[in-house]
Structure formats: structure tokens, C-alpha cells
């Protein structure tokens, strides 16, 4: 009686396709998916699935441990090749900005609204307190950031930086610094959401109070119009981006504090990725704000033009976040 074991027959029949998969996986691990040609790419999922099914069969019919371990390892390696990461960073940028970013923002208007409300409260508190007693200014505004613009300065000293273009020297550096600094503040606002959201409130409040204190100081010297002309062109995209990042942080906080029907971890993972979409989109907003603040504000010192640009910017923002992606959203059901 020299019948072969069933598990051995099984292995003999299938092992050619395992070896084929193994060779592909080795090449992908070395050179990425691009190292396969079109025909091989089409073949990869087929061989991958047949190997997975072989693993499943082998688990129930074979006791050859070397074979089982080989199939386990091969399947796991192939799994990473097939499901490692699907999209490239630049691959779907168009779809991201035309649909996913604005749609995700619209889906989370409540936490974003709360972040905006907290910041607005900060502005009001900063404004009212500083308007009543100028000494409050020092509480709200960091000395380094104010660079001499404080209640002790003369009106002329306050007016000058609003219209001082800096002559075009080093504007690129300035814009680049603003962009990177603000983006990191935005990232921080998002990440702080993990600490149950309290620091996000603090951050929003502090930013608002600083703005309010500055505004109150300038309007006490009759510079209201000039001040807002100076702030608003870059302020709309920048403050909105900070609010969005704060809102993203609050999404995290909400997922942690009120997990809802799912487990806390599952809910956090789902909401976290949505919040991540918002933060990623904000990088672009910060870039726009940095360019406007670094170049436009320094080069154009006419208050009327500043207001026109600010209004145009606001209109674009409202239109973009209100409308972009609506048709595609509907088309997708």
C-alpha cells in the first residue's frame, strides 16, 4: 500500500503558485509595487487569494508544520503587499480638495461651531477687559509677540507697523516662518484633543483673547478700521483654519468622552481619521494665510484694497466650504 498522504498531494498540486507568489512578494518588498509589470500586477491578487485559501485548507487537513508555517508567513507577507497602503500621498489630491475635505467639514459642523464659539468668547473677553482697563493687555498678549505694541506705545508707534511693508526684503522667509509656525499650532490644537479636549478650549480661548486685546488696544487709539484691514486678509483663512483644527481636536475629545454605540476604541479610530482629513486640509489654508500675511500685507498698504481682498477671501471660503463637493456627494448617494 503506497498511497500518498492527502496533505502531500495537496501540497504537490499547489506549491507552484505559492512559489510564484513568493517571488512576487520578494520583489515588492525590495522595490515596491512598481517593480511588477502590468500582467504580474493583475496576477498578484489571484495568487494571493489562492494562497490564502490554501492556508485555510491546510489548517484543516495538514499536520505538516513546516508547510503550515511557510503558508502563514507567506500569506502575511503577501497581505502587506496587497493591503500595505493603497493610495500615495499625492495620488488623490484632486478628489481630496474637491470633495472629501469640504464634505468632511460640513459633516462636523457642531464641534467646529463649538471651537469657533469658544474663540469668539475669547475675543469678546479680551476686548471688553482690555477696553475697560488697558493693563489687561499684558495678561493676554505675550510680550515677544507684541514686539513693543502695548498700551505704553504712542498712537504713532501703533500705526506704523500696520503700514510698514518692510520693503520686500526677507518676505519669503517671513511667509515661510508664518506658514510653518501656524501649521504646527494647528496640528497641536488637533492633537491636544486627545487629552479630553480641555486644552483645546484653552488654546482657542487664548488665541481669541489675544486678538480681542489687540483689537481693543488699537480701537482705543482710533485705529479700528486700519487694524482690521491689517488683520482680516490673512485672518479669515488663518483663524478659520485654527478653528477647524480645534474642531478636529474636539471630534477626538467627543469620541473619547462619549463613545456612543461602538466601543471607545473603535469609535475613536473612525472619528480620528475623519478629524485627520480636516487637519490635512488645513495645511493648504495655512499656506494661503502665510502667503497673504507674508507678501500681500507687507506689500499692499492701502486699507481699502485690503478690505476688498479680505471680502473676496471670505466669499471664496464660504463658497468653497458651502458648495464644493455637493454634486459629487449627491452622485455618490
Amino acid at each position, binding site marked *: *500500500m*503506497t498511497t*500518498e*498522504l*492527502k*496533505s*502531500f498531494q495537496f501540497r504537490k498540486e499547489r*506549491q507552484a503558485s505559492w512559489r510564484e507568489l*513568493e517571488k512576487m512578494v520578494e520583489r515588492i518588498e525590495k522595490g*515596491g509595487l512598481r517593480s511588477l509589470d502590468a500582467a504580474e500586477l493583475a496576477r498578484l491578487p489571484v495568487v494571493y*487569494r489562492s494562497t*490564502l*485559501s490554501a492556508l*485555510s485548507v491546510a489548517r484543516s*487537513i495538514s*499536520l*505538516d508544520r*513546516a*508547510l503550515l508555517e*511557510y503558508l502563514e*508567513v507567506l*500569506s*502575511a507577507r503577501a*497581505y*502587506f503587499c496587497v*493591503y*500595505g*497602503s*493603497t*493610495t*500615495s*500621498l499625492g495620488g*488623490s489630491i484632486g478628489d481630496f480638495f474637491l470633495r472629501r475635505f469640504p464634505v468632511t467639514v460640513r459633516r462636523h459642523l457642531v464641534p467646529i461651531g463649538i471651537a469657533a464659539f469658544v474663540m469668539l468668547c475669547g475675543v469678546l473677553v479680551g476686548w471688553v477687559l482690555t477696553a475697560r482697563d488697558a493693563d489687561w493687555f499684558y495678561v493676554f498678549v505675550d510680550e515677544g509677540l507684541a514686539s513693543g505694541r502695548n498700551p505704553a506705545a504712542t498712537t504713532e508707534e501703533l500705526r506704523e507697523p500696520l503700514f510698514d511693508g518692510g520693503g520686500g*526684503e*526677507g518676505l*519669503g*522667509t*517671513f*511667509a*515661510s*516662518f508664518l*506658514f*510653518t509656525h501656524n*501649521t*504646527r499650532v494647528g*496640528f*497641536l490644537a*488637533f*492633537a*491636544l484633543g*486627545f487629552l479630553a479636549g480641555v486644552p483645546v478650549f484653552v488654546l482657542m480661548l487664548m488665541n481669541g483673547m489675544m486678538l480681542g486685546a489687540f483689537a481693543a488696544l488699537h480701537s482705543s487709539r482710533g485705529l479700528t478700521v486700519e487694524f482690521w484691514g491689517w488683520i482680516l486678509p490673512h485672518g479669515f483663512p488663518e483663524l478659520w483654519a485654527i478653528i477647524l483644527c480645534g474642531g478636529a481636536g474636539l471630534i477626538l475629545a467627543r469620541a473619547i468622552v462619549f463613545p456612543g454605540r461602538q466601543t471607545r*476604541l*473603535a469609535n*475613536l*479610530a473612525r472619528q*480620528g*481619521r475623519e*478629524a*485627520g482629513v480636516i*487637519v490635512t486640509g488645513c495645511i493648504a489654508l495655512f499656506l494661503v494665510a502665510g502667503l497673504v500675511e507674508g507678501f500681500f500685507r507687507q506689500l499692499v498698504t492701502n486699507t481699502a484694497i485690503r478690505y476688498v481682498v479680505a471680502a473676496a477671501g471670505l466669499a471664496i471660503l464660504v463658497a468653497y466650504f458651502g458648495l464644493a463637493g455637493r454634486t459629487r456627494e449627491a452622485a455618490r448617494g
Partner: protein
Amino acid sequence: MAERSRQRLITPPEGVPLEMQVARVGDRLAAFLFDALIQFVLFFIVGLAFMLSGESLDGGGGGAIAFLLIFLIRSFYFIGFETRWQGRTPGKKRAKIRVMDAQGGPLRTDAIIVRNLMREVEVWIPLALLVAPETFWPDAPWWARYLFGFWTGALLCLPLFNRDRLRPGDMVAGTLVVEAPKAVLLPDLGGQRPRTQQLATAPAWPEFTFTDAQLDVYGIYELQVLEDLLRRTDPHRRKAFAAVAQQIVDKIGWTGGKLRPEPFLRAFYVALRGRLEGRMLLGERKADKHA
């Protein structure tokens, strides 16, 4: 074999569960330190190039480019590598670990971005508190500083306190860091195939026959111990063969004439495997001799 406590069954969309090993905290720390080292070297190169270029901070484009480069390195080092290299960075590659989706689905770019943005809170804030607390939070009362320090410190240690070794970034992104499956193949299928074949087709020694009762003495565990023994290549294996063969003969009461250890063991392996696999098809898994 890896420890049971680190094993996780991941079910990919195809529905066949795969075994993964959750990465050790030590490996992850090593990977992070290696990546951080690379980042610092890059910072240093950018800084040096800027200084050598002779540009001042408030003139020309050199400063702008330097700021941007440092920002890109700091914020997008991990994100860039993990999207490009399917969940690996240079450090992770060295430590033989990688990121995967905790549910077994595809690892999405969103998840990679999110898990790495959380490093702001996990790493940079504790670091800033440690190195220069006054720039981070001027005029804070000492107790607030300690409280906050404790809080962020607890976050830093979070991976130590959960089974899956999740850091906050993993929780938010729904990812898991696992050991990359061994890249080295088990030698068996390659060089030793003829021998395996022999292993499985062995009834070339007709003098060894076993009754079902004799085969039912042992279970799967013993079969696989025997498999390991037969695959041994060290010089002492002959001695081990003889001892084990004698043990088996005594245990099952085999009386088939002169005992030649290696052919006997091979024949017994095949017979036992055939018997156990046959029973498995009928739904009986005999785990070991006590079962």
C-alpha cells in the same frame, strides 16, 4: 515560536484569519530613536547648508527654504515614509516591525497622517516640558507644571498599559504595529525538498506496519515533535533517533522484528500523520497523547 500573549488574529477582507505578532515596546522605541536620529542629522545638514550659503535670515530665499525644509522633515518624515513604504520607516525596517490597519483592512493615508500628527502631543510636548518648560508655558505655577508633566508623561507610557501596545496615535488612527513576518523562508521547501518527499511517501519500508490502536496512542503535539526531530541535521541526531525509536516501541508495544531507528521513525511519522489527518477530516483533532 512567539509568545501567545502577543498573537493577534487579523481577518483580511478575504476572510481567512492571519496570525500577527504585536511588536514589542522595546523594538518600537528602538525604531523611533533611529528615526529621530535620522531627523536630527537632516536638521543638522539643513542648518549647516544654510550657514554655509551665507544668507541671513531676513534676506533672500535661503531662510524661507530652510524653514520649509525643517518643517517638512519634522512633520512629514514619518508620514512620507509610511505611505511610501507600506507602513514602514527606516527605523521600523531595522527593527523589523510595521504598521497595519487594526481591523485587517487596507492601511489608508488618512490613518498614517493621523497617527503621526499625534506625535505632537506624545513626544514634542513632553520633550519641550523637559528641556525648556518656561518657553512652553511662561509663568505657570509649579503645581500646574507638574500636573501637566504627569499627564503627558502618562500619555507617553500609554503603550505599556494596554495589550495591543497602542500609543495615542494608534488609537486615533485605528492602527496596530506588528512584527513584520520573517523574510527568511523556512529551509524546508527549498533545499530539503527531496527529503520531505521521502518523509511523506515513506511506505517504502513495508516491514513497518502499525495498527490503528498503536497509532492512536499519540496526538498532534507528539507528531510535530517527531517532525522536528526528523528535520534535525546536527551530528547527534542518530543517537536521539535510537532513543526515541526505542521509547515509541516500548510505548505502543510494537513487535515487528529488528529495529532500525531512522527508517522506523520515518515510517511511523507517515503512518501517524496519515492517521491523525484522517481523523481530522472527520472532525476529531487529537491535540496530544492525553487527549
